[in-house]
């Protein structure tokens, strides 16, 4: 069944001051109703200050990043959108006419991008309102209904979040996203869903709604035009008891229209960051890496920045592989984002060079990387920390990188460790011989521990397999003997 899905996305802009007054925007930290003034609480007679230039610039930048044309040399009106709710002290919300129009992101057309203002935070249970948030500038992004499945919708939202994240112009804290979506199935009616707070939520809401509408259409029922709310806890949508409201929109007579000239747009365009999907294409071309790897690398702006810095030092393809597998793995395991990484590109580059020159094994390299992420230090220190020995002579003779050269284990050393492991873990050996392959990994881990991580895991596996094969043969022959 064909369907059309569109979004209206609100995100808070990362400005220090509110849109029409000088109050700070850190509504989360401050005690309730402390970051307020007569203007943002709409005290009688208070007049707005001219709209925050940084907020307008941020919206222009986001519009450009979403491929929009910026509305030039024409009045952009800051309008009053009236509705009655405790969180709205003026009884109206400021909302501008479009600043950017006709954009596009991953095949979804962006209808418009404009500026809005956040209301306060109302707690219906306590009956209290905190106006700290009131007046924080928002960007609203409206798409055309160009998505045709919940998966497409999710893909678009992820990409959009990535663009917003890249821009650095929206607040990075989670939970600032607010999305409304509208969905219509072929033969049905357009239904709006409000109250969506995450990409995951949007996907679930759309998925639920498609199912619900499909079932109705199949039963021959008429889908009413309505606004529904997404209930995060139950992952369903329910009708909102809301009248069709007329916002009585008028241009705010308190605020002169905003007029944007070309010079302003060009200045912003110059300092604007590269959009992730364009960066992805560039990385593919410039570094001759696969689309998939490039996709992983651009998934965080800082990750991509780091990649390009390291790729200057070492073979980009090796860097790309390491980013996609090892670094991502380590970061995910430690629940870190690339932005949290504190080691330098040179440190990482040095590590990769050592791997490349086979001075350490890739597995040792990953161990070093873990340490590097935990606590950046000189490679030599890290190697020592995890027990990879460095001889005195070597340290004397060679330069920093060469100093890091690792002395491999002697052949006998590894063999001894393997034998010891097999002796100490008869149960695992038994399991393996019964056909449970995972037991081998367990044993390999034990060997790794005994050799303090210095051994090459492939070597360990080779030795282990060989020894175990020997045991198996012996066992089989024993059994044959007995049966005979």
């Amino acid at each position, binding site marked *: 069944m064909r369907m059309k899905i569109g979004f209206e996305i609100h995100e808070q802009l990362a400005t220090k001051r509110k849109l029409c007054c000088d109050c700070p925007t850190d509504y989360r930290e401050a005690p309730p109703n402390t970051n307020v003034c*007569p203007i943002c609480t*709409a*005290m*009688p*007679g*208070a*007049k*707005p*200050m*001219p*709209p925050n230039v940084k907020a307008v610039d941020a919206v222009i930048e986001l519009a450009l990043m979403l491929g929009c044309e910026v509305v030039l040399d024409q009045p952009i009106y800051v309008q*009053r959108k*009236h509705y*009655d709710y*405790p969180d709205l*002290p*003026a*009884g*109206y919300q400021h909302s501008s006419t479009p600043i950017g129009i006709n954009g596009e992101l991953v095949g979804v057309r962006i209808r418009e991008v404009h500026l809005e203002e956040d209301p306060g935070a109302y707690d219906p249970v306590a009956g209290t309102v905190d106006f700290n948030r009131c007046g924080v500038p928002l960007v609203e992004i409206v798409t055309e209904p160009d998505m045709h499945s919940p998966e497409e919708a999710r893909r678009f939202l992820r990409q959009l979040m990535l663009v917003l994240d890249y821009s650095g112009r929206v607040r990075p804290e989670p939970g600032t996203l607010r999305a409304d979506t509208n969905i219509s199935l072929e033969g049905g009616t357009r239904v709006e869903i409000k109250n969506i707070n995450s990409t995951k939520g949007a996907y679930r809401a759309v998925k639920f709604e498609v199912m619900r509408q499909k079932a109705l259409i199949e039963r021959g029922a008429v889908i009413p035009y309505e606004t529904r709310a997404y209930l995060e806890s139950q992952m369903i949508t329910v009708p909102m008891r809301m009248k069709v409201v*007329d*916002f*009585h*929109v*008028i241009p705010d*007579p*308190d*605020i*002169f229209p905003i007029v944007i000239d070309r010079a302003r747009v060009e200045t912003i365009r110059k300092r604007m960051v590269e959009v992730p999907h364009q960066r992805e294409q560039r990385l593919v071309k410039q570094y001759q890496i696969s689309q998939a790897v490039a996709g992983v690398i651009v998934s965080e702006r800082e990750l991509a920045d780091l990649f390009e810095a390291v790729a200057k030092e070492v073979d980009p393809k090796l860097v790309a592989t390491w980013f996609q597998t090892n670094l991502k793995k380590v970061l995910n395991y430690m629940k870190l984002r690339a932005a949290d990484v504190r080691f330098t590109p040179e440190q990482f580059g040095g590590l990769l060079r050592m791997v490349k020159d086979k001075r350490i094994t890739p597995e040792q390299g990953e161990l070093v990387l873990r340490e590097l992420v935990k606590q950046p230090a000189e490679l030599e220190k890290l190697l020592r920390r995890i027990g990879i020995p460095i001889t005195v002579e070597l340290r004397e003779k060679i330069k920093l990188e060469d100093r890091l050269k690792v002395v491999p284990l002697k052949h006998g050393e590894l063999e001894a460790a393997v034998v010891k492991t097999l002796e100490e873990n008869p149960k695992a050996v038994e399991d393996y011989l019964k056909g449970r392959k995972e037991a081998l990994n367990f044993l390999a881990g034990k060997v790794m521990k005994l050799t303090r991580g210095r051994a090459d895991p492939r070597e360990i596996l080779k030795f282990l397999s060989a020894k175990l094969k020997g045991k198996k043969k012996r066992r089989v022959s024993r059994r044959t003997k007995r049966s005979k």
Partner: protein
Amino acid sequence: MGRGTLEKLGAIQQGELSATKNVQQALDRIKKLDKKIKAFIELNPNALAEAEAIDRKLKRGELAGKLAGLTIGIKSNINVKGLRATCASRTLEDYVSPYDAEVIRRVRDAGGIIVGMNNMDEFACGSSGETSSFGPTDNPAAPGHIPGGSSSGSAAAIAAGMCDLCLGTDTGGAIGNPASHCGVVGIRPTQGLVPAHGLIELAVSFDQVGPLAPDVYGAALMLEIIAGRNPNECTALDSPSVNYSDKLDIDIENIRVGTSSKFRELTSPAIMKVIDGAVEKLHHLGAEVVEVELPNLEKGLSAYYVIMSAEFFSATRKFDGRKYGRRIEEVCGDEVLRRIKCGEYISRMEQRDKYYKRALQVRTLMRREFKEALDRVDVIVGPTVPKLPHQLGTKLSPAEMYAYDYLTSPISLAGICAGTVKAGEASGIPVGLQVQGKVLGEETVLRVMRALEAVK
């Protein structure tokens, strides 16, 4: 009181009259007269203390400001920290201002002593002073008649000598109209000349704070104190500060004064007779009188009421009953409710093109028409109000009431400035001459007003 603003300032500066004594006299006079006139809603309990502070400054020979020691009345829709800005409405009955309006800050800096908050039409919705929830104001210059509105209490306070100067506000004639009926001087400044921060709006795009005074000098002095850019406001003009009061007595020879036959069409003959006399006087003083075209003048009134209602509806949404006493619709008077309902209707999505948009077109038309006329002359003079004030308590239809604004609302639409000065009397009731000037043409307007005043 009797003496002019300049003389009184001189007396205070010379030490002949202390600020404290001046304030005491004002308070005594208010106490004596205000039960009947109802020009004030609330008095400033700190007025005497503030006066004493000014006296100490003067005694030490310090600069105490251009308004030092003068008593000032403030319209109740302007925020004065610590006093109630009720807008003469039950909605804001208990609203004590937590901040000073920008104009109040300037008045205080200039040494003006705020004696109290003046009565007015509820939320400035009225042309007679009768819609106040605190009772109607009487006209000291024509007892038993309306003082005009909505700055009713301010004009009456000046006319009764209860204070030296007042700050009123004008949206569609609310300074000129009561100034005319009470025989005092009032100025509606050019849109955006005076900061609006702290003025509780009737219709933001028209609202202007302006002075009411017993004489042109007083009005000029107050205007130069409050005028000038406030960088924190969006709609403030980037205007230089002008010492209006220094340039009042330059003669008006070679000034071109425009009149329009439209005024005669819309105005009662008794008033026109007084106005003709005033124009004649200006002519004798050397002004050149020429006829100008204002072909669409009468269209202004209805366009004004459309835009004003839409903006008023919007402005009153904050009075939702959650923060300031009860919801406005539950406690306001008929006129306020009428304008809210009108505004709600007009600003509906399906109605916008029909009313609001067309009214905005008339606004552009009015701006152009006055610009063209004022390109040919320095000022345009005519009556401020087309009819004499009615007796207090007379029932008027809304249309009859709105008709008081025929000649003032076009000025608001055009965004230009205008001053009212007493031209004479008809049946013993004051009649004001309205002097309309170019954008930021206050200096010339005040000169013409002063010339006429000096003849009397």
